[in-house]
């Protein structure tokens, strides 16, 4: 073939060190914050406790937020209903656990984990199914309209919360963790709840799995492109609707997983528990940068650490620590730390 065009030689200059470092800055924030914490907190054992449990709390937040990174970050759907999926996940998961009282009551880690696994599977199946219906009925007509999304998903949230009350009753449900996950591990004068270790493992699995799927498949690309110009994606031959539905289901199922984990952490679940966590979840997704699993992950860790340090140093300031963190990060990077999708 002979289709040669004229030479094309745009001028390139060297990048400065700062420019080359820029992509790595967010990753560095976590150790920097840990180091700052060490400076501000004189008691080493307290610092250690706060750091480790803060990171673990970050993982838990990440699990809840991971679904929203997909739905809000990638698909650009401002889903206030996400909190409702967290709640459903918690109720279904806890119901399963209560049914498996034999397994959770036994002081065997293996049995406990199997029970937990079953609860997670049940919860994810339930939230995935509800997510499917939610997308079909509620979200589908409002792609691309943020305001309507807020309202419609708000409506969906209320409906789901009320249905939870109809099904499970208005009372709070209390649950205790599986026997082997109660209590703490103590080391070097620091204490770490055992349950948080489970959260760390689950969080890492979710993180790795999401990264894998988004890097190795075109799904992430299709969604991002589809949000911008769905017609064109279809003209390339992709069944965009199916991909959107699939991603929405995945996001909802992840919220369900988050719900189980969060419910077991709180040990008390209410219909509006998910919604109570929503502001935090939104903050994490936004400071991470829309659409970025890595950003969301780092953001969640930062939030977890920040909360603990600030609450220790000055409890009054804890009220605004998350908000301050968000404002600072957005002032530094208005698009969030690692933006994948450009926000409008």
């Amino acid at each position, binding site marked *: *073939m*002979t*289709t*040669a*065009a*004229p*030479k*094309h030689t*745009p001028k390139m200059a060297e990048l400065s060190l700062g420019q080359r470092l820029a992509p790595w800055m967010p990753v560095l924030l976590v150790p920097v914050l840990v180091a700052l914490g060490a400076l501000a907190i004189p008691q080493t054992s307290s610092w250690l406790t706060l750091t480790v449990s803060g990171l673990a709390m970050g993982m838990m937040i990440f699990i809840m937020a991971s679904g929203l990174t997909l739905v809000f970050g990638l698909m650009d759907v401002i889903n206030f209903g996400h909190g409702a999926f967290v709640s459903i996940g918690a109720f279904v998961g806890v119901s399963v656990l209560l049914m498996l009282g034999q397994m959770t009551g036994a002081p065997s880690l293996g049995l406990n984990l199997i029970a937990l696994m079953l609860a997670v599977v049940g919860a994810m199946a339930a939230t995935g199914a509800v997510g499917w219906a939610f997308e079909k009925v509620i979200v589908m007509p409002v792609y691309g309209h943020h305001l309507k999304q807020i309202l419609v998903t708000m409506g969906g949230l209320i409906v789901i919360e009320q249905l939870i009350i109809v099904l499970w009753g208005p009372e709070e449900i209390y649950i205790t963790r599986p026997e082997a996950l109660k209590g703490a591990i103590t080391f070097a004068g620091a204490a770490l709840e055992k349950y948080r270790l489970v959260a760390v493992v689950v969080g890492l699995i979710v993180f790795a799995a999401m990264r894998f799927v988004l890097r190795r498949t*075109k799904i992430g*690309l*299709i969604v*991002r*492109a589809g949000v*911008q*110009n769905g*017609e*064109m*994606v*279809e*003209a*390339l*031959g*992709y*069944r*965009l609707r199916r991909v959107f539905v699939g991603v929405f289901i995945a996001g909802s199922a992840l919220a369900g997983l988050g719900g189980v984990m969060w419910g077991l952490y709180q040990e008390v679940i209410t219909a509006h528990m998910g919604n109570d966590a929503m502001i935090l979840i939104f903050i994490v997704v936004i400071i991470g940068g829309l659409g970025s699993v890595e950003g969301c992950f780092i953001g969640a860790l930062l939030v977890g650490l920040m909360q603990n340090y600030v609450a220790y140093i000055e409890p009054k300031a804890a009220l605004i620590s998350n908000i301050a963190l968000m404002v600072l990060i957005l002032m530094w990077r208005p698009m969030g730390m690692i933006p994948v*999708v*450009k926000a409008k």
Partner: protein
Amino acid sequence: MSEPILKLEGVYTNIAQYHILQGVDLEVPKGAVTMLLGRNGVGKTTTLRTVIGHWRAHKGRVLFDGEDITALPTPLIARAGLGFVPEDMGIFSDLTVEENMVLAAIHGPINSARLDWIFTAFPPLKTFWKSEAGNLSGGQKQMLSIARAMVEERKLYLIDEPTKGLAPAIVSTMARALRELKEQGASILLVEQNFAVARALGDTANVMDDGRMIWSGAMAELSGDATLQERLMGLSLDAHH
């Protein structure tokens, strides 16, 4: 002559309350370049969009390779073997050039020989392979849009005003690339305002006005007849060129 690759039979298309296409008939022969010409706003773009399924014909039929695709969803139409270069280029500006191309290659990894061929025609795509497509210059976006359609073999290419915004040198390489596509056996339906390109590439020509096809015939006949051009398109093309 063999069966045409694409055939529109009395297609009517409405957009909202407007009746845009009013009985368009069109045949695109296999292995040839077919031009679709006409003034602004006569319905050329609407015709292409009706073929790909972005607008729906509410009357008439669209046949592709002998199959009725009138009611098929867009993704299936595309997968039947259509490549589409929209008028507004349809660039995914948040994605990099590479990601745009990867998405366009629906059947798997990009064939590297084909990619090299695309790079020789449109060198900036290679230079800015990892850059965000939204930051490309106007002409570079146009190149990307065409390249996307060409990244894999298609039976038929629908191309809406590909040369707008391209520098003359690139226009020639693009024209050559299209010709090479044709030589590989593909068919092309091309909307074009640049008459030089139309004349150089077109085998047959169709002229639209006001939602109807008003003239169809060989390109040579049209380009040779100034009065015909005057009558069909309001202006002699040669005079302008």
